[in-house]
């Protein structure tokens, strides 16, 4: 722990109540991770490009095997409700109209990362692993590569970590035909 004094945890329910009260302002983009509220940073064109590429590519190649989602909330546990840049979800018909997707529903979770790398590689990664998110990608816009994390462990780490860049192909473990080239994903 960075500091010896714990921050006060909010539950998802308290967080939603605060949001409903307007506590975060009309234009706030906030998410809850391990009981603490974080700002979602503004998205520049480079970041938006990758978000859009992932969404359009996976939607086109999906053929009904999954749903694509961009920046909607996922409910990881009682203290965490982040809004990942991109997720591939199991198609459950109308079920998500009554609840947010949870770890069992998430085939792939992607964060496109420029100014929040340490956070995405650190606290977010640990939370995802503990929640059992089976595959987590960080599209690293600073280094121009994609970090592929698989085999989450309850200790808060991923046992398999690889890095792909340039003409390397990346693919979700669950669907080996859904390959894409890193340079295409980044647009450079």
């Amino acid at each position, binding site marked *: 722990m960075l*500091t*010896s*004094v*714990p*921050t*006060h945890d*909010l539950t998802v329910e*308290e967080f939603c*109540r*605060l949001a409903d*009260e307007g*506590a*975060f302002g009309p234009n*706030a983009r*906030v998410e809850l991770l391990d009981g*603490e*509220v*974080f*700002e*979602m*940073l503004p998205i520049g064109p480079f970041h938006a490009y990758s978000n859009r590429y992932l969404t359009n590519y996976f939607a086109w190649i999906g053929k009904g095997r999954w749903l694509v989602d961009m920046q909607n909330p996922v409910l990881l546990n009682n203290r965490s409700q982040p809004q990942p840049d991109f997720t591939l979800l199991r198609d459950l018909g109308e079920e998500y109209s009554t609840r947010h997707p949870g770890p069992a529903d998430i085939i792939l979770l992607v964060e496109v990362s420029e*100014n*929040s*790398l*340490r*956070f995405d590689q*650190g*606290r977010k990664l640990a939370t995802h692993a503990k929640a059992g998110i089976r595959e987590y990608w960080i599209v690293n816009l600073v280094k121009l590569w994609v970090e592929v994390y698989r085999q989450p462990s309850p200790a808060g780490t991923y046992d398999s970590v690889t890095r792909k860049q340039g003409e390397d192909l990346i693919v979700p473990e669950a669907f080996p035909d859904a390959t894409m080239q890193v340079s295409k994903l980044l647009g450079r």
Partner: protein
Amino acid sequence: MRVEPPPYHRFTVEEYYRMGEVGILAPDARVELLDGRIYDMLPVGPFHSSVESRLVPLLSSTAKGRWIVRGQSPVHLNDGSEPLPDFTLVKPRADHYKQKHPRPEDVFLLVEVARTSLPFDRKAKLIAYALAGIAEYWIVNLKAKSVEVHRGPLPIGEYSQMSRHKKGEVIAPAAFPDLQIAVADLF
């Protein structure tokens, strides 16, 4: 590589009070707001309490109306920070700050008694107090049985002078040199 801090959402004092009003923070919650983040205050063991109990008369007896002693009461540092230091010596006011909590310019001396919270008191709290211009900040280090005296707050979030004092030494705040406290008397 520039290391950026996590993008914490920083609550304002107003939002913090509102959370209390709507029951998200319990009325008896031991929490404080520092730099927009809400911290749970750690439980206080008997050694900690005994040191506080010794400090009360030591800080009060020579006041002669020149200051008011407050225990575990808020100081309003700025719009994002309202900690509850263990003790503050503040400017006298007839209404005893009934309308508004003391501001940094009202504080002669601020004291934190620290055991498990020592790294926090030396880092996050020190930075906040220095940035706010709290003139003098003492950390009573329970484990080492010493007192760390910080003076000369700088706008970069540091104090320009720091000294450590142990049993056998006598300390006094710069504002009131006659308020003399023997470190041995604290433990």
